[in-house]
Every structure is written in C-alpha cells, then in structure tokens.
C-alpha cells in the first residue's frame, strides 16, 4: 500500500535533524510485533511528536466541519421552534423522556470507557484497553437499540415528518415540522454513532493485532476525539428535543 521509494529515501537521508528533543521512536523498546513502517514517522514530518500533533489536529479540524454540518439543522430548529412554540412543546412532551435520559447517561459512560481505553494503551496495558473499547462499543450499540425503539413507536403512532404525519392530538400546523427536524437531526446523529462504532470495531481488531503501542496510538486518539464529539452533540440534542418546557 505504501510506495517503495520513501522508505529507502529515509535511509539515504538518515534521521532528519529533528527539532524537538523527543527520543526518536526508532530506538524505543517497542515490542517486535510493531510494523516498522508504521512506527517510523512519515517522511514529511521531522519526528513522531509532530506526526501525532498533525494527526490530532486533523481530527480536530474535521470535528469543526462536523459542528458546521449540524449548524444548518440547528438554525432550522431554532427558527421553527420560534415560529411554532406551542406545537414544539406539545410534541416534546409526547416523546419518551426517560428513554432519552438513559440514552444520555449511556453515551456518557461509553465516552468514559473510550477515554480509559486511550489511557490504558499509553500505560501499555493492551488487554484492559481492548476491554474498554468493547464496553464503549456496547454503549454505542445500546444507544442505537433504544433510539430504534423510539423511532419505531413514533412511526407506529404516525408521528412522522411532513406528508406522512397522521397523529391527531397534536396541533396540525407545527407538529409535522417538529418531527421532521427530530428525525433529521437525531437520525443524522444516529448515523454518526453507527460510524463511530464501526471505527471502534476497527480499533479493536488492530489492537488485537498489536499495531498500537505507547509510542504510536494516533488512530486510537483520533477515534476517541470523534467518539467524544458524537457524545457532545447528543448532550446538546437531548435538552433541545426532549426537555422543551
């Protein structure tokens, strides 16, 4: 997958004059199962510290695009909530608040396990790290199951967006708009949770193959940042949809 030329260039140039004094990864005592190409910093970075900084900065910048991705929907939510206050409040009471509260707690716990997983890999406790990743994965799965249940009950009652709206007791003008926004925003968030679970699965597989070590765990840190961000989005969606007074 990586073209041949850069690695022999590395040898021809010798170690580049690394500005930061950090000990070069090549001579740290990582175990033999580490893939040599993965451990050495890529050619365009002077040393591993810069590469790790670049990896986490890339994820942070990506997270800002994700924030802007939800920005359009939040703006739509705010305008229509301002236009139809009574309908939004009635619909919010219609949703199941207990289930949502449990979902919030569940995602927070899953976030904790992800943080612990990264914490343990830095202590080189690989088995504990895999355990925490699995628990984070289960947290995401529980969230999706509960959320699927909520969508099912809403669909049965006919509380669906726009044209498909059938529910009788809620005000007919604002309610389809609430449910349109509800399904879009929480649906988009659920997709992000599903993608996050896929990434955690990839991490578990790589961890079991011994790819990561205290010196090189950038992908884990990236997925961790993404997972915490998904949890942070839900922290805002929870009061916006379920706790309208």
């Amino acid at each position, binding site marked *: 997958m*990586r*073209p041949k*030329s*850069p690695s022999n*260039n590395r040898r021809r*140039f010798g170690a*580049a*004059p690394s*500005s930061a004094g950090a000990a070069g990864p090549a001579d740290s005592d990582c175990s033999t199962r580490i893939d040599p190409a993965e451990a050495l910093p*890529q*050619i*365009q*970075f*002077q040393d591993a510290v*810069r*590469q790790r*900084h*670049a990896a986490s*900065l*890339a994820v942070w*910048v*990506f997270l*800002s*695009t*994700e924030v*802007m*991705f*939800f*920005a*359009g*929907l939040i*703006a*739509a939510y705010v*305008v*229509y909530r301002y*236009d*139809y206050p009574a309908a939004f409040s009635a619909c919010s009471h219609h949703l199941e608040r207990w289930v949502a509260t449990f979902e919030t707690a569940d995602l927070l716990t899953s976030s904790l396990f992800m943080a612990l997983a990264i914490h343990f890999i830095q202590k080189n406790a690989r088995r504990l790290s895999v355990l925490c990743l699995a628990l984070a994965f289960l947290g995401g799965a529980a969230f999706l199951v509960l959320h699927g249940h909520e969508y099912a009950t809403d669909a049965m009652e006919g509380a669906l*967006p*726009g*044209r*498909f709206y059938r529910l009788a007791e809620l005000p007919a*003008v*604002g309610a*389809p*708009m609430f449910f*349109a*926004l509800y*399904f*879009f925003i929480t649906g988009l968030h659920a997709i992000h949770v599903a993608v996050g679970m896929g990434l955690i699965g990839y991490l578990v597989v790589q961890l079991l193959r011994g790819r990561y070590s205290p010196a090189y765990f950038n992908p884990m840190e990236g997925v961790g940042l993404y997972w915490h961000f998904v949890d942070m989005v839900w922290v805002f969606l929870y009061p916006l949809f379920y706790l309208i007074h």
Partner: protein
Amino acid sequence: MNPASLAPEHPPSAPARAPSYLTAETGPKSWLFTHDHKRIALLYLGTVSFTLILGGVFALLLRLELLTPENTIMQAQTYDRLFTLHGVTMVWLFMIPSIPTVFGNFLLPLMLGAHDVALPRLNLLSWYVFVVGIAVTLIGMIAGGTDTGWTFYTPYSTTSPHEVIPVLAGVFIIGFSTIMTGVNFIVTIHTVRAQGLHWMRLPLFVWGIYGVSIIQILATPVLGITLALVCLESFLGTGIFDPLKGGDPVLFQHLFWFYSHPAVYIMVLPGMGVVSEVLPALCRRPPFNYKAIVYSTFGIAFVGFLAWGHHMFVAGQSTAANVMFGVATMGVAIFTAIKIFNWVGNMYQGQVVFNAVTAYALGFIFLMIFGGLTGVALGTVGLDAHWHDTYFVVAHFHFIMAGPTLLAFLAALHFWFPKMFGKTFSARWSLIGAATTFFGFFATFTPQFLLGNMGMPRRSYAYLPRFQWLHVASTMGASILAAGLLITLFTLIHALFFGERAPENPWDATGYEWACASPPPPHNFEVTPVITRGPYEWPVIPEEARRAT
C-alpha cells in the same frame, strides 16, 4: 544565474540532473496511486482544465442564444438547462477547486520547505472524490435536465418536474472533496513547516491558501446539509422548505447563502494570493506592506461569514437584517480595497518586468477595481432594490469573481510553468493571449452593466427587443474572450512539447519554491532546508560562493 540554495554552505546541485518527479516513475499506475503532491496537482490541473473548457462552451452557447429576443438556436427548456450547467460547472467544478487544488497542492510543500503535504493519502482520496462528484453532477444534470439555476431555490427545486436529486448528490460529493483539501492544507501549514520558517516568514500565497482553507472547512458543510435537506424535501415531502406545510423558503436562502457568500471568497482569495506572490517577483521588490495583506486575508475570511444576507435584500427579509448585512458588506469590501492599494503600491520604485504574467496580474487588479466598487454600490441596500436579479448583478459577479479567478489561474499557470514542467513558453504568444483574454472579458461584461440598468432580469431566455443590441455586443465580446483563451491554451500546449529547457529560476524570483530544481525531484529537497531569510529577500550570497557560480 541560480542563487545558491537556501543553506549557503550547500554546494551547487550536482551536474548530473537528479530524476524529476515527472521522470522518476512512469506508467498509469504511478499516476493513479501516487502520493506525491506534485503529481496530484497535475491530476487536478487536467480535471480543472477540462471543466473550464466545458463551462466555457456552455457560456458560448448561452451567449449565442441571446443574440435574438426570441428563439435563436434552442428552446426555453434547453436554455434553462444550459445556464444551470454553466453555473454549476463554473462554480463547483472550476472556480472553487482551481487554484487551491492545483497550485496549492503543487506549491505548498515547496514553499514550506517540506517533502510532502501532511496527509498525502487524504490528498489522493480528495482527487478521486472530486472526479466521482464531477461525473455524478454532469450526468445528473445532462440526463435529468435540471433547470433550477446553480442556486436551487426552493420551492421550484423541490417541485420542479425535472430530476434535481442527482445534481444535489454530485455537488454534495464535491463538497467533501473541498473539505478534505481544506483540512489537508491547514494541517500541512501547521505541522510541516521547515525549521526557521515561523509565521511571519510565510509567503503570501501560503497565507492566501490558509485563509481559503479556513473558509472551505467552515462553510462547505452547511451547503452539504442544505442540499441534503432539499433532497429529502423533494423525495419525501417532509415540509422543511415547503410553504404549504409550514416550512419557509427564505430559510433555504439563508442556509444556501451562508455557504455561497464565503464560497465566492473561496474562489477569489487564492487568486489574490497568487497576485500577491507574483507581483513582488515581477516588480523585483518586496510587497508594499506584507502585514497589511496578511491581515486583510483573514479579514476577508472572517468578515466574509457575516455578509451573506446581501443576496436576499429583496427576498422578503426583514429591514433590520438588511441593515446589518449592508454594514457587514461594507466591512468586507474594505479588505479588498486594502489589497488593491498594496498591489498598485507594489510597483512603486520597483523594476517592473513586462510579460504575460504581469499582464494577467494587472488585468486582475483592473477587474477587481471595477467589480469591487460595483459590489459596494450593490451593497447599499437602496440601489440593490433596482439591480437585484438583473444583468447588473451578472456583470458584477463576473467582474469580481469569474474574471479575476480566471486571470489569476492563468497568471499562476504561466508563472510556475517552468517550475512544474521545466519548459518555457513563447513570450510573444502568451502576451497576445493574455491581452485578447483581458479585452474579450471586458467587452463581454461591460454591456451587461448597461443591460442591468435598463432593467433586464437575469436568467431570461426571451427579452424585449430594446435590449438586443447590447446582447449582440456582449456576444461579440464573448467570442474575443474565447479566442484569447484558445491562443493561451495552444501556446502552453505547444510549450509543453516543444518549449526549450527552462533555467532553475527563470524569473530570478525570491520564493522558497525556486530554491529546489525545476521540475523538482520526487521529494522536493535533497536535504530538509533551513530557512534563514524572509520570503521576499534575495538570498545573501557570500562573496566566494558568488564568484564560484
């Protein structure tokens, strides 16, 4: 005369020329799976040139149709599809990706003294996503017959009898390619700078690309979500923008223009970066005020986010919002004015070398003056009531966005042609091409200002006979513009095959990118350079090294 490379003690490059990035590896596989930022730049150059020619053909067909008030060569339906094709192709397929992806990719690592961009695999992925996006968009538009204009205003786009979803999906995909490029460049500028290259020594082109990347990553997602909402609206009838179901079409315009106004700065800021880089080299003196240009780049990037509402002055928006957007528009206009003053000032006490690149740069400044000031006139809310959605606005945004981006793209292509291909082009023919293109552009769009004053609405297939002679003048101008572009195209293609070998630094420019060989070796620098001087100071050559070269 090649100034010694950056580290003065380094001996001049060995006589046996090292294989350049073009000749190091050959075969399609080495191009399609390359991680080399220079090859990816050339892939983008090919794609972007194709879309420029495509957009130009659509424009010529539009101008031909407008020769007579009624049916000239096509029906109303075809005309509507064509101006949508022209709009989408030029905006998303040429102008937004053109300078950042081609010259940003090629030059950023060279100007930062790095071996490659920070995320090379993401760089290649962004090209593939871009090509897939182009295919989906063009096929969707041509097969589906989208006729909503590049702004997709609801409720016409959601209830239009013609297929809209594939085009929205295509633009959605291209949006991701833009985000990937933006993320890549920001991380590159932050983490792979050579030793000694602190922030205030960055070349102005790098600052331009940095400002553009910030807008790209913060604005494009809002377009993505808006187009997704329109898809769901037209497919499921969910009512977000449907007035009969309680939705609000003006909200669509808010979300769309929240992206599209910063998008016009995504299109023109790289051009400003190119001119800010080219002018010091051709006037043989440092820029007039380095810090002023850097701060105005960030001024445009951030204040650009505040001014989207001036596209909606007459769309039923509240007067309070109109006043706010008017003030924000004036705020943005002032940064462009600062840049223009600095460019003109750059020639003061310089030694101006006159060739095609200078012609393009001066043409860029002249169009920018006209476009900018008509933009300010449009920004005064009172005049916009008359000019909005007429040909005055069409002329304005071509003068401030289309023309300058095109001229800056050609200026960059000519200035860095020796660096990219190692060949030189014929000075005479490139100058003729530049002059014809500039005059053709000016002749095409000045009549449209007058059409706007007469009150002819834009996007109209048929018009009243009294507008006809101005349309004929504009179409003549368009043919001159097309001729100019063809001359430039042939000059460059001719130079590609028959041009003689270019010296290392044909313009004797001071940029860091001229320190390595042209065309550069696969990994740019033999030894990672250490920057010891500013981007616009000539390298201090110790006496003995000067005598040796």
